[in-house]
């Protein structure tokens, strides 16, 4: 393993690493908010919203990530307002991940026993109050492990930005490897950068899960 590749191109690596972190963070927030909204659509008593939620999830999660990103990259430019690769990629990544997050959240909500809703509603709480005070706090505990998996997938999937010139870690690594012809060494360092992000995240999710487990 040749560390000179890392030291010689440290600036490029860091720029890509920074963009990967930024894209992942934005997509993490975006996909969580969007996923939570879609999950609520999926379980609401309102039929139209339920259909929309189901359609969204089934459409998005059954096509490849790359295609979703292409939709947001080539779609806008076809309509005359091109988005740059970083923005299109991050939106695509958010949308793609949100479908999986919506399913995880929905499953968590459904796993809270029905008696909880009945107790809350029969005491006069309305639907929204029941969700906020009774169902969601219990669902979150069940949702953390699958959510952690989705967030880790999201960070790894951010490498798709390369294919729309999104200036992420992979994109810069491609440049370094064509310049040095040291393909394998170049990408070994890329893997390490990803691990620097994903290992602590997976550890943090485990700690959070255990802490909630202990509370009651």
């Amino acid at each position, binding site marked *: 393993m040749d560390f000179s590749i890392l030291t010689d191109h440290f600036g490029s690596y860091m720029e890509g690493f920074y963009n990967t972190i930024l894209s992942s963070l934005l997509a993490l927030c975006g996909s969580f908010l969007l996923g939570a909204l879609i999950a609520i659509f999926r379980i609401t008593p309102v039929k139209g919203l339920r259909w929309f939620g189901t359609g969204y999830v089934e459409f998005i999660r059954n096509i490849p990530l790359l295609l979703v990103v292409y939709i947001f990259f080539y779609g806008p430019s076809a309509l005359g307002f091109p988005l740059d690769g970083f923005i299109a990629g991050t939106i695509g990544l958010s949308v793609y991940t949100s479908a999986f997050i919506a399913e995880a959240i929905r499953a968590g909500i459904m796993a809270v026993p029905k008696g909880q809703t009945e107790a809350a509603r029969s005491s006069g709480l309305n639907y929204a109050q029941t969700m906020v005070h009774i169902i969601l706090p*219990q669902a979150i505990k069940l949702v953390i492990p699958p959510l952690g998996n989705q967030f880790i997938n999201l960070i790894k999937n951010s490498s798709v930005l390369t294919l729309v010139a999104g200036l992420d870690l992979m994109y810069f690594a491609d440049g370094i490897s064509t310049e040095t012809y040291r393909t394998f060494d170049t990408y070994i360092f890329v893997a390490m950068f990803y691990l620097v992000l994903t290992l602590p995240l997976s550890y943090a999710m485990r700690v959070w899960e255990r802490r909630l487990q202990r509370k009651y």
Partner: protein
Amino acid sequence: MIDFHQVEKHYGQFHVLKTIDLHVQEGEVVVVVGPSGSGKSTMLRCINRLETITSGGLTVDNITVNDRKTDINKLRKEIGMVFQHFNLYPHKKVIDNITLAPIKVLGLSKVEAEEIAMSYLEKVGIAEKALAYPSQLSGGQQQRVAIARGLAMKPKIMLFDEPTSALDPEMVGEVLDVMRTLANEGMTMVIVTHEMGFAREVADRVIFMDQGQIVEEAEPEQFFASPREERTRTFLSRVLSH
């Protein structure tokens, strides 16, 4: 206080409630007994619209339960409910289980709600568990918390859906004691139970249901000593003979 008039309920093909007529007076304690699957719980759950009725009329405190214009949350404030499986909120401490609805629905301050909660916890005899989580309580204690939670809304009616069926035998007594006290204080109560001794002692009226129908209703003395209907006699001989 509660009026069922010719109430029918279907679950698809299944006819769960058949022409139910039932009138519960203010302050009355009505105990509903009958075999499993006879529609007792379903009938009870219609009263606060956890179940909807297919046809007929149902009013509580002169408010039509199944009217679209009825604010169901407002009606439910007046009706406390205690479930077979307690249904306490596991992520909230005992005191917070009790204060949630008074704060969110009645608009009480946290201090007022906690004061009321503590007074009812004392009434059911477990004030010292106020800061515990439900999982740290025995079944009997959990059910008493559930009763305190219902009472804290100061309801006009309390519904009990097999409140002792999920309890270990030695804990049944402590829950029935609380219910007995409530009955003596004049609370309007509808109780679905298999506790025949309790029914006999506390009920103003006993209702026997079978296959979705009210087969017989009578004062407890008469109901247990000389039931009119053959089906009632069969049922009683099965549950009382052991």
